[in-house]
């Protein structure tokens, strides 16, 4: 895991606007990424919109995607350290690093690509789960519970737990869950003001957000906390 840093050198600060409109700048950015991640990165589909959700590959062969992040209220290196610590022991999407531009306006998380095999979204896993023995399904639930508990220990509210945020990876006949979309999660204690905290923990406007999993109190409070995570987790189990 590479601790992220700003793009170095004498270049002008890069912005998303200039990158979107300037193919030359885009190439220049891609050439500079190895200095950020210490690994070459290649966009696999040049037609993909720049950059959010773009599929790419690292030099070592890892398939990754670039996810636009809002990191105004807390520290990106600290976030990467948390992911690096947790990813060794729990089932979460791997984060390889965070790209930051010099002006600090835009950041992209370079994350493991879960949208291609061997990963299978839980929302499409009906046939696979139906033929899986109960004990294996119980193991998937335990792995997820361990992941949720570990994230809560780092004071992180997950917010978006649903079958679209969980993927299954088949490894030697065993199904292993991987929790994704953690860019929507929030660390409670790192907000400067109470209003920042309330805003960050409020219901997301993300299109992937699934209200079917909402706890009853969310209807009024419009906010998430550890207990609403538990309700959503239970919905995924049974």
């Amino acid at each position, binding site marked *: 895991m590479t601790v992220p840093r700003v793009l170095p050198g004498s270049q002008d600060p890069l912005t998303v606007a200039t990158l979107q409109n300037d193919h030359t700048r885009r190439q220049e950015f891609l050439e500079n990424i190895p200095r950020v991640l210490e690994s070459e990165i290649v966009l696999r589909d040049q037609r993909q919109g720049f950059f959010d959700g773009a599929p790419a590959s690292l030099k070592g062969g890892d398939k990754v995607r670039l996810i636009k992040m809002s990191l105004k209220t807390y520290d990106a290196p600290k976030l990467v350290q948390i992911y690096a610590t947790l990813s060794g022991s729990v089932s979460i999407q791997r984060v390889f690093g965070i790209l930051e531009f010099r002006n600090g306006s835009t950041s992209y998380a370079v994350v493991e690509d879960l949208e291609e095999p061997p990963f299978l979204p839980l929302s499409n896993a*009906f046939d696979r789960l139906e033929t899986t023995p*109960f004990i294996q*399904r119980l193991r998937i*639930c335990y792995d997820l*519970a361990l992941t*949720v508990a570990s994230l809560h220990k780092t004071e992180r509210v997950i917010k978006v737990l649903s*079958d679209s945020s969980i993927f299954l990876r088949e490894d030697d006949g065993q199904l292993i869950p991987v929790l994704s979309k953690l860019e929507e999660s929030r660390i409670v204690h790192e907000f400067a003001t109470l209003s920042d905290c309330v805003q960050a923990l409020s219901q997301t406007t993300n299109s992937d957000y699934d*209200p079917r999993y909402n706890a009853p109190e969310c209807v009024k409070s419009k906010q998430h906390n550890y207990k609403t995570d538990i309700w959503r*987790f239970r*919905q995924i189990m049974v």
Partner: protein
Amino acid sequence: MQILTAQALPSEFDSHIVLEEFHNVDDRRISEILGSCLDPTPSRRPTAAEVEQRLSDQYADECAKQTPSDISELLEKGKRSIAARRENQCALVDMFSKADVEKLLTFEDSWDDVPRLDDETEVGSPLRLAPRVKFTLGAGILYGLIDLAHIHVRGTVVSRGTTSLEGIASFEVFYFRI
């Protein structure tokens, strides 16, 4: 998608329907583990660490139920096949597959421990299967029910004087010479 039941969530679904359906859950095991997660009062719901511990206990219990029955069935199958070979009733003979042999070898050392294959360390267990496992392996080889190529003896077992693959083959030859 719901994992334990392998069922899709209804498209129209809200928390009130969840609470109604919760009372109709048939599987008592699951309702005992996860029931309180649906308490309408948020403060009464368990923490994630508590849920993790309950699922860990349930998973361990399920493993404990499955493991002895698997090996017990295998030992019973071996007993029937060996008896059939002794009486020349070839129609009743079941050969041991590679997976069967691996399972037997897993419990070969279970005088009072269950060996863990990952790091060769051992943990305590009430199982006392070694005598029956040793008999099944030996008689299985003797009566041609086990393919020797399927036997891979762990280093720790060899070091304590148990025969290696070659040793087992020599034993077979020696036995027939007698």
